[in-house]
């Protein structure tokens, strides 16, 4: 399988009156065609910024590259980028603010399809009808306005709108966070069904670890602008290595009263990304912090076959076993 998307040393700093906000700092990963990669972390860890940078939606980069189908997105001309846009689509978190209230559902969907000439004018209606049916929407909804729908229905409209352009890659930025549990399940199932039918690749950004485990093939855990652990979903959930990942997983509430939580309670909050801690960015909150952690920045390196983790705990052990 080839990599549809690869991100290399992505850096995105935002200027602020108090100094540079290092929202994303040296992040690299790649996504294989037809798979789903999850990006998890707490708010402010840079997962949404990473997503936006991947789609070139937030201006220039501070450093690094984004390769989509082996083309550097940030080196493309305006015209070439525009031609590529239909292939890269996004579904936003809030289905209430991402649909224009002044356009009918049909118009919302047709707009981009017409603009990019995805299908001949004569087939437009038929194309939209087909997509809507596939997303579980009645074709009669085309003449209605977004405010007439519930959150779940609106999210279906957002998905249908993205899908109408025949994309290869869809960025899902917290697509189910704003929805109720029973509706969440419907949308997650729909996303999985569509992935199989259309061979889509997803980058799934979420803070809900149980949804991520359900839908993703690989998962990257972010903390304060850096990826701290990156592994196939099963390996990561079976055996989380990084102390932050362990704490994050232990905090997930489980709907089972017999399940006694072995909670690893983290002290304090995420530090400011303007002046991140030296060395490992997690060291002030880490229960296993060592001397070296405050001095040397750990690199993301292999621990197991395809399990990578940025933590001195493992790399020291590896060095020791070599000797």
């Amino acid at each position, binding site marked *: 399988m080839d990599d549809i998307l690869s991100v290399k040393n992505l850096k995105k700093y935002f200027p602020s009156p108090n100094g540079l906000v290092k929202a994303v700092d040296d992040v690299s990963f790649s996504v294989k065609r037809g798979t789903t990669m999850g990006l998890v972390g*707490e*708010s402010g860890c840079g997962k949404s910024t990473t997503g936006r940078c991947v789609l070139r939606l937030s201006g220039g980069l501070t450093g690094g590259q984004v390769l989509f189908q082996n083309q550097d997105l940030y080196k493309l001309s305006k015209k070439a980028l525009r031609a590529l846009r239909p292939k890269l689509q996004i579904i936003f978190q809030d289905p209430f603010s991402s649909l224009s209230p002044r356009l009918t559902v049909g118009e919302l969907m047709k707009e981009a399809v017409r603009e990019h000439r995805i299908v001949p004018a004569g087939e437009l209606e038929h194309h939209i009808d087909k997509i809507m049916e596939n997303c579980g929407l009645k074709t009669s909804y085309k003449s209605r306005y977004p405010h007439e729908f*519930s959150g*779940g*229905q609106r999210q279906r409209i957002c998905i249908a709108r993205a899908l109408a352009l025949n994309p290869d890659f869809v960025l899902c930025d917290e697509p189910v966070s704003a929805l*109720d*549990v*029973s*509706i*969440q*399940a*419907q949308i*997650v*199932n729909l996303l*999985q069904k569509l992935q199989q039918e259309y061979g889509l690749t997803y980058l799934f950004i979420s*803070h809900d*670890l*149980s*949804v991520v*485990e*359900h839908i993703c093939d690989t998962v990257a855990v972010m903390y304060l602008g850096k990826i701290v652990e990156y592994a196939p979903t099963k390996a990561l*959930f079976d055996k989380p290595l990084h102390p932050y990942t362990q*704490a*994050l*997983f*232990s*905090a*997930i*509430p*489980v*709907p*089972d*009263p*017999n*399940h006694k*939580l072995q*909670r690893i*309670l*983290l002290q*304090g*909050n*995420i530090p400011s990304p303007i002046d991140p801690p030296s060395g490992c960015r997690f060291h002030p909150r880490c229960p296993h912090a060592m001397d070296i952690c405050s001095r040397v920045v750990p690199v993301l390196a292999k621990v197991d076959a395809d399990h990578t983790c940025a933590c001195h705990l493992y790399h020291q052990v590896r060095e020791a076993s070599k000797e």
Partner: protein
Amino acid sequence: MNKQQIRSYTKLLERQRRKTNVPERCYRTQMKDTGNAVEFDNLQVQFFTDNGIVKSVDGVSFCVPTGKVVGVVGESGCGKSVTSLALMQLLQRPQGQIVGGEIRLNLQDKAYDIAKTPEAVMRQLRGSAVSMIFQEPMTALNPVFTVGRQIEEVISFHDRRYATAQEIKNRTLELLELVGIPNPQGVYGMYPHQLSGGMRQRVMIAIAIACNPRLVVADEPTTALDVTIQAQILELLASLRDKLGTAILLITHDLGVVAGIADLVVVMYAGRVVEQGTVQEILSCPAHPYTIGLLASKPVVGKKTDSLFSIPGSVPDPVNLPKHCYFHSRCSHATQACTGEYPAEIQLSPTHKVSCYKENTHG
């Protein structure tokens, strides 16, 4: 009712609400069980809108025992928040009105019916006998006052034991320490925007427990927070219940949160309680198809499934609710009987109650 009638009816209700000098005997009542902090008895809350009457809460009955955590779960729009707002008398008036039933609040030596308590008396109760933690710590705190001042306000208004400014300040610092704020002296003088979400929620909790209320209503206290911070806040709430013996009414949509902290669970759907019981009963052997569906639709870490169970359809329109069971159109167990009257509550065990015909036929 047409629009004109609705307006005149709300005017009538408002006039009753605004009455002053109501004698105490009008709202004094008896607790059914003195071990309860609050009892909801057949509570009915309606919103009078231009599109019709919305029965937000339609005959809800449950109790919160002293020193216990009761979790109310349900999807948005099921009336769980409205139930808690009715208890605080914070409903959006004049549209939102308590039209029937009782909310009996235990005040140790006496009990008041909140549904009839006049506004002036309610002011004395809010913050001292019963207080509330809101979902959004960002919007619930006043941005132009320091944290210390906002906590002090509650103490100086309700608690006569702290008379001088210094005493009140000491008590405030004590509270800040109690809710686990690392440097109380510093935070005392800070404004809400200088604190993170988790810290602000701790301040909210400090305000809520300032006067040792018998009951704290926590309306989605952790929904706006990250998982690791959520774990911290839940831990704090559980420790406060143990330390202070406060009853907590926890409103949430997350069954995982309920499992971690609650003693009793109430499941609501479209304004009614469909099932209630102990955490063990509800989560280990749920009886109502809605509860079963809710539990099955949430992916659980460590349990791999190909496709998630999803409850088909959506919640019925609250203006035109059907005469039969509200869950009927989405229920996979629906039978002929389900199109009849709304199912009555059936007792499965001393604590476990469910409103469903499915259980009726078994028993």
